[in-house]
């Protein structure tokens, strides 16, 4: 039953918020719904860690140590984003950027978006997975253009068309996997991932090759892999900040999760390392393009969105390497990135709101003006560029270790990209945070508490990964395939 609740709560929440989302109480209802989702996720996690994987609704929904990580992450970041948006979106409404109707749209679509992601994560049916991912595109398209500015409409259009085409190709891939499974499983069961995984050696390798190419291009578009990443910086920069935080922190993870599930369907024998190679290639390209695009950015949120391209590339690369160590590192990296990046977006959204601009050249003296925002932005930036002792450093270190063992030639490229990203982001943020303030000191915004909470969690991941967590992630890493 817990498994059903985890998808039902946000869906019911979306319906309620569709009715009351424009009122002042809408913010509190949003937080309450997200908190209830997190509670359900917590109950489910305890059950999985004690008793192992289980399924519901005649195997249509299932949960194992791999997807429960992402379910927890989704529920957690969804809660903290709803807490952040209470202050942030209220200010936006007060500044006249939003009216009541759009606020209601925002609240309802926010919960619908969380619902589609949780459904994509917990479903066992690869067809439903596709429908949920498409639902995520549809529910967020109107959120990106929430402010109705020319730039945001352009961003939403780009997002809709690029992700729509991407996801259509993923449907073709899904159809081909269904076709490959048809012979072994019959029409009824050939869409269930657990069943497909059980007969993965009987699936036709030629068809699976073609299918995986379509799937990695399709879901890779949503994960922001180069060269399909064009929508990502626009969507992140032009949408409201809570959306940027959830897109980067959650949606990219869910899309990558889909790719990883399909990679696990590839046969085990040594001759078929092509899905891994493909993922390594796309991942490496994303790391390099992401890191080298950072330098040309002037918009604060665009800076962090290119950093998302880089980090998702790194996680994809690590899954491509395969094996327990690289998979463990990739999962840790996804966790660390998701917490840190949402914190970075909270901080930068707050800074941009106070300064009235997203242009980094015109933001200065944040530390003088609003110390809490300054600390949050500085610490998030340090964490995201992989400064020890934050968790992202630990996962990047593990990924490099795994790469040294399996594909040593990639290490110099990775180190170069990470170094470039470090230098660019650090130079940019320190110029904004320090320097003289050009306006009077403002009251500390309470919304940034969630940013510090995320950073504290990332710090724990970096200093000493708790024993329970280490065992759990190692189990999940084995599920992600060789």
């Amino acid at each position, binding site marked *: 039953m817990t498994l059903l609740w985890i998808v039902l709560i946000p869906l019911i929440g979306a319906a309620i918020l569709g009715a009351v989302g424009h009122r002042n109480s809408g913010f509190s209802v949003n937080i309450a719904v997200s908190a209830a989702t997190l509670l359900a996720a917590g109950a489910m996690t305890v059950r999985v860690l004690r008793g192992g994987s289980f399924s519901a609704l005649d195997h249509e929904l299932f949960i194992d140590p791999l997807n429960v990580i992402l379910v927890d992450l989704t529920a957690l970041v969804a809660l903290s984003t709803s807490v952040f948006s209470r202050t942030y979106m209220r200010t936006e409404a007060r500044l006249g950027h939003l009216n009541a109707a759009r606020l209601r749209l925002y609240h309802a679509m926010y919960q619908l978006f969380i619902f589609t992601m949780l459904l994509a994560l917990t479903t066992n049916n690869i067809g439903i997975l596709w429908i949920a991912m498409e639902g995520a595109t549809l529910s967020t398209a109107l959120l990106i253009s929430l402010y109705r500015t*020319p730039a945001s*409409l352009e961003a939403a259009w780009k997002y809709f068309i690029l992700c729509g085409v991407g996801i259509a190709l993923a*449907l073709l891939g899904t159809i081909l996997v*269904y076709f490959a499974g048809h012979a072994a499983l019959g029409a009824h069961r050939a869409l269930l991932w657990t069943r497909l995984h059980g007969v993965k050696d009987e699936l036709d390798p030629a*068809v699976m090759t073609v299918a995986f190419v379509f799937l990695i291009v399709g879901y890779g578009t949503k994960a922001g892999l180069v060269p399909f990443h064009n929508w990502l910086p626009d969507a992140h920069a032009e949408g409201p900040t809570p959306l940027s935080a959830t897109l980067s922190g959650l949606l990219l993870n869910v899309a990558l999760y889909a790719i990883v599930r399909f990679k696990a369907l590839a046969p085990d024998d040594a001759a078929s390392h092509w899905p891994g190679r493909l993922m390594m290639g796309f991942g490496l390209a994303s790391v390099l393009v992401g890191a080298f695009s950072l330098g040309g950015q002037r918009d604060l949120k665009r800076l962090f969105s290119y950093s998302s391209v880089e980090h998702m590339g790194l996680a994809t690369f690590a899954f491509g390497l395969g094996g327990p160590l690289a998979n463990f590192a990739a999962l840790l990296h996804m966790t660390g990135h998701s917490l840190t990046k949402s914190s970075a977006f909270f901080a930068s959204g707050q800074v941009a709101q106070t300064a009235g601009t997203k242009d980094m050249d015109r933001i200065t003296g944040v530390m003088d003006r609003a110390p809490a925002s300054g600390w949050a932005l500085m610490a998030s930036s340090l964490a995201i560029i992989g400064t020890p002792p934050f968790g992202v450093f630990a996962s990047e270190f593990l990924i490099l270790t795994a790469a040294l063992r399996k594909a040593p030639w990639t290490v110099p490229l990775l180190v170069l990209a990470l170094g470039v990203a470090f230098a660019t982001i650090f130079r940019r943020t320190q110029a904004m945070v320090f320097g003289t303030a050009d306006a009077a000191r403002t009251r500390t915004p309470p919304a940034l508490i969630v940013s510090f909470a995320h950073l504290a969690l990332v710090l724990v991941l970096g200093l000493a990964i708790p024993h329970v967590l280490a065992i759990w992630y190692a189990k999940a890493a084995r599920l992600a395939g060789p």
Partner: protein
Amino acid sequence: MTHPTRIIDLLAALFLLVAFAMLSQRRLANLITLYAWQGTVLALSIAILAYETGNTHLYASAILNGLLKILAIPALLRRLARRLDVQWDRESLVQIPTVMLIGLGLVIFAFNAALPIAGLAHTVNHETVGIALASVLLSLLMMILRTAALSQVIGFLALENSLIFAATSVTGGMPMVIEFGVALDVIVGVFILGVFFFHIREQFDSLDLDRIEGRED
């Protein structure tokens, strides 16, 4: 070879023909009509497959696709075109004969790529799979070449048609839940796009994407 399979082959050829016609058509009203024709061919071929295999859920799928793609979506698109007052797509950068040649190249490529899949599918001809894949590529080509927002969307919808055609011809139809889910996504998507168009026009006084994307120059 039985009669139903021959009819399906004929319909597949028609499907490809409509895809080419859409590629060359610049008048929006005609483009929408062609889209409706494509939907008709799709629904008919699903119905014939249902008759041949005796699969009841394929009949439901044929009715669903027919209602959606012959009636609902074309009506919606016509209404949009009328209210937005767009009739012609702008002259594209690539001449129509060149587009046709590129399209031919894509068809040859698709037939080659379909070989391994068709080798496994005992139910259908190699040609049908190749045609389905070719139509997917042709729809993508149409989306790349068009500059008007509405014709890009029709390209996107044609892409979805080709995917459903591929699904029915390769696997004999996806389970009903999935068909309904896909249909729901399409209809919601078209509605959202409709809303979008009005927002875009409000801001730009135009539905020409070149003008929207070039606004910084």
